[in-house]
């Protein structure tokens, strides 16, 4: 296995990710140091950095970025852990699982707008209270776009908590935790404390990257920060966006320096996170007070997180058919289907392109990722695969455009596929890495002993076992492709109108009804595909005469581990022995 040839399996994925990312990074790095010859700037220097640090809003913007990025990551992790710890093994867990994919298919932009409809001074919450407080005008409270980015932090946390919960539940399925938890409980630890002490350390290896991905997303979030974040100054990502779209083209140098600063902040935080991790690793017992606090949060959080997301969806639907909905009316007047009538022809025109593009991107990224995962472990190389998640898209797009034009791939299908591939592959890899690592090595060995080649082993042993995570990765990759606006426009140059390019342009107009329809249209296709990814394995299992009931609630990999977890959990390399007190 460990031959040079099999290492080549890494090449497609690395090329797919690193060439565009590298070009994007170069397109950011050079201008940040004063080099952009097209603008007549050909002298290496620190001018853009000086200008960046002289910006009056920068200090506050960095602070806001750190606060909302770190705050939302910690809060999302806390919510997800609390829910997982409290609900473990209870019926509520099953219901929540069925709901999670739905919550995740709602695009970030839509969730942010929905959250604003809920908590803004003219939002649903205040309208509910208005009769009690005798309000006929919205109160003068900054409940969104507040100067400390509290609304942004909350909305990001609530949006990311379901993602982390999904990852936790998927990982918890196969680590054979139940026996260990029972053991810990029999030693007298309360259930929640037992979960935190036994399950969390076992799950953490699968959780680390998703948490970092949430952090990276939070730091460079655009849509949510535009809707909910402060404006004067905004977060660093929005400052960079403003400089990138400044009519004064020289500001692009400043934007490049700002984007690099954002990247540096991300890398520093990851380092800090690793330090914190090392410090906490020594912690064997969770203080009972903390466990109790988590238990107290858990129940309400398990209701709150999905409830907020569902109310957001309902508000989007309500706005999309409202003829008008002025404060303090509790219900919209209408229904008025003007926005939908205008949107539906569009849906017909661009849905096929969007779906084809998503499918083609997955068809490119999925095999490349699987090939990379089949290559003998080379940690450093594969960890580069998620670099694009850390880079602010804005900064990376200019370099990508230059690369595509140079390669004569701009406005071509191949260029568009390449650009979508970069954005999609890291997520596919993130979803598949865990299941692949935990797959029992003895199954492969047995297949090889029986004379199967590497391809046959993959096709007849590995893929059937990991069908669920592979389908889940495909669905998530598809959803990521559907949501791409900037990259689609940059690579496609308007030749490929998609749901994202057509609807995001309308969102710029600020009409809540159009925003409602746009968000729902963007959510529809990913929802369908996610449903399909859930339903397909259940159908297949039924077809094989499996006795298992159909289980649409298990998005990730339970079936994949029927064999491996039941037989050999303790031998699985990625599930280290639990750090129970001995």
């Amino acid at each position, binding site marked *: 296995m460990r031959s040079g040839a099999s290492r080549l399996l890494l090449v497609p994925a690395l090329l797919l990710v690193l060439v565009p990312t590298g070009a994007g990074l170069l397109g950011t790095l050079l201008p940040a140091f004063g080099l952009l010859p097209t603008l007549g700037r050909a002298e290496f220097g620190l001018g853009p950095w000086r200008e960046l640090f002289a910006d009056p809003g920068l200090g506050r913007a960095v602070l806001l970025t750190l606060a909302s990025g770190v705050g939302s990551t910690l809060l999302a992790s806390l919510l997800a852990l609390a829910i997982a710890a409290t609900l473990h093994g209870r019926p509520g867990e099953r219901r929540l699982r069925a709901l999670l994919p739905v919550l995740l298919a709602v695009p970030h932009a839509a969730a942010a707008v929905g959250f604003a409809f809920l908590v803004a001074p003219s939002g649903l919450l205040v309208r509910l209270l208005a009769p009690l407080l005798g309000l006929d005008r919205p109160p003068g409270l900054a409940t969104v*776009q507040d100067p400390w980015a509290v609304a942004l932090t909350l909305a990001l946390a609530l949006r990311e908590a379901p993602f982390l919960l999904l990852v936790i539940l998927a990982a918890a399925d196969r680590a054979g935790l139940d026996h260990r938890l029972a053991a810990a409980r029999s030693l007298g630890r309360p259930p929640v404390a037992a979960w935190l002490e036994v399950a969390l350390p076992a799950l953490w290896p699968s959780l680390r990257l998703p948490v970092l991905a949430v952090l990276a997303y939070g730091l460079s979030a655009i849509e949510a920060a535009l809707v909910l974040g402060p404006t004067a100054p905004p977060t660093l990502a929005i400052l960079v966006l403003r400089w990138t779209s400044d009519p004064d083209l020289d500001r692009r140098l400043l934007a490049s320096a700002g984007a690099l600063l954002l990247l540096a902040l991300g890398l520093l935080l990851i380092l800090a996170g690793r330090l914190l991790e090392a410090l906490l690793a020594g912690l064997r017992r969770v203080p009972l007070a903390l466990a109790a606090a988590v238990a107290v949060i858990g129940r309400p959080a398990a209701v709150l997180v999905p409830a907020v997301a569902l109310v957001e969806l309902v508000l989007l639907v309500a706005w999309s058919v409202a003829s008008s909905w002025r404060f303090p009316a509790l219900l919209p007047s209408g229904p008025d289907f003007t926005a939908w009538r205008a949107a539906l022809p569009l849906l017909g025109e661009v849905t096929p392109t969007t779906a084809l593009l998503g499918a083609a991107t997955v068809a490119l990224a999925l095999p490349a990722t699987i090939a990379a995962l089949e290559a003998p472990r080379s940690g450093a190389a594969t960890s580069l695969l998620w670099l694009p998640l850390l880079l602010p898209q804005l900064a990376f797009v200019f370099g990508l455009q230059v690369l595509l034009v140079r390669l004569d791939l701009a406005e071509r299908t191949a260029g568009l596929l390449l650009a979508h591939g970069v954005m999609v592959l890291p997520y596919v890899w993130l979803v598949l890495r865990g299941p692949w690592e935990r797959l029992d090595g003895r199954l492969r060995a047995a297949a090889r002993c029986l004379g199967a080649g590497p391809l046959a082993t993959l096709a007849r042993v590995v893929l059937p076992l990991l069908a669920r995570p592979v389908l889940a990765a495909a669905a998530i990759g598809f959803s990521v492709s559907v949501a791409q606006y900037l990259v689609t426009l940059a690579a496609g140059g308007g030749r490929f109108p998609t749901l994202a390019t057509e609807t995001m342009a309308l969102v710029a107009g600020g009409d809540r009804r159009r925003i409602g329809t746009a968000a729902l249209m963007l959510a529809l296709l990913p929802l369908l595909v996610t449903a399909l990814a859930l339903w397909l394995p259940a159908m297949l299992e039924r077809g094989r005469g499996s006795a298992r009931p159909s289980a649409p609630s298990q998005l990730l990999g339970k079936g994949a581990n029927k064999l491996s977890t039941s037989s050999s959990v303790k031998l699985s390399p990625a599930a280290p022995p639990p750090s129970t007190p001995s």
Partner: protein
Amino acid sequence: MGSTRRTLLAAAGCFAFARLVGAVDSFGAIRERARGQKVYFNHWGGSPQINDYIAWAGSELLRRFGVELVSVKVTDIAETVGRVLAEKTAGRSEGGSVDLVWINGENFAAMKKHGLLFGPITPLLPNFALVDTEGKPTTLVDFTIPTEGYEAPWGMAQFVLIHDTERLREPPRSIAALLGWARGNPSRFTYPAPPDFIGTTFLKHVLYATIDDPRRLARPAEPQTFEASTAGTWSFLEALRPYLWREGRTFPANKEALHQLLDDGEVDLSMAFNPAEASSLVLAGRLPPTVRTYLFETGTIANTHFLAIPFNATAKEGALVAIDFLLSPEAQARKQDERIWGDPTVLDLDRLEPADRARFERLERGPATLPPEALRPVLPEPHPSWTELLEAAWARRFARG
């Protein structure tokens, strides 16, 4: 070195231009070559009405001239400027991906300065002769930068204030009155955070009312004297600040957000650059039917928005045919119709045939739209260099938290 390059670029541009136009090519020949071309038109896509109007123009262009207009909707035209810049950086000097852009002001100044535009184009357009270049001087001077024919005027804009008569019967009609009114009605007024376009334009009105000598604004701003000459502007804005919505600690992001605040009843005033915008928002149900528009007594800033062709456009002839059609009385009258878009024409009605003039005279105005004779006085845009200093100085005072 920079200037040599610029000269070379200009020479190359002229050469390409001469090749396109031929010696004394008539527009008929351009139309011939345009037939069958695909014109990629990049424009702000945030308004369904505007998108529908462009779709109509596309179908007419295809029917009449065999030119296929492809609408490329963007959230900010700067994305397109960036795209053309990326193509130039990559050395693609022909076969570019953008054929036609909708721009004005600083974006035009930037594209012109960096040689990203093709032209001059207006001498080639038959319908340009109908443009009211005397009555509407901003059709030739874009934010004090002479267009020199590198962009063709498409529509007129004038800053107006919007108020809901139901909630605010007598709005403040000058910058000074605004402060007095805000003192008596705290948190009922705000403006979009500069560098948003409308927010910056509001600042320019404060600048006009408070600068020691308004004539300075026609000339490039001098960084050395900027602070001294604008001292009044900042003391005004600081005095206004505590009476702003959210006490001036935060500002709405753009005019769409401000319209929403007006509709939600959080503030009493909004602003727009299209005199008919309030009427069309009423039609769309986004503002109450009781809103009206007005100008400051001393006038408001007016400008023009334009169409231009990037230096490396693939379908230059097609783009020229498209621009000429969009300048025709028929297309301009349809654009001015508030049920369609409500964007005022750049044409001089006196130069039109009676039948064409009648197209404009038939148009009805919404209740919130002021008649053309009420859109006075008109203030010119300050030189673009003021914008940058103004935005930077505002950020230093209001956006550092």
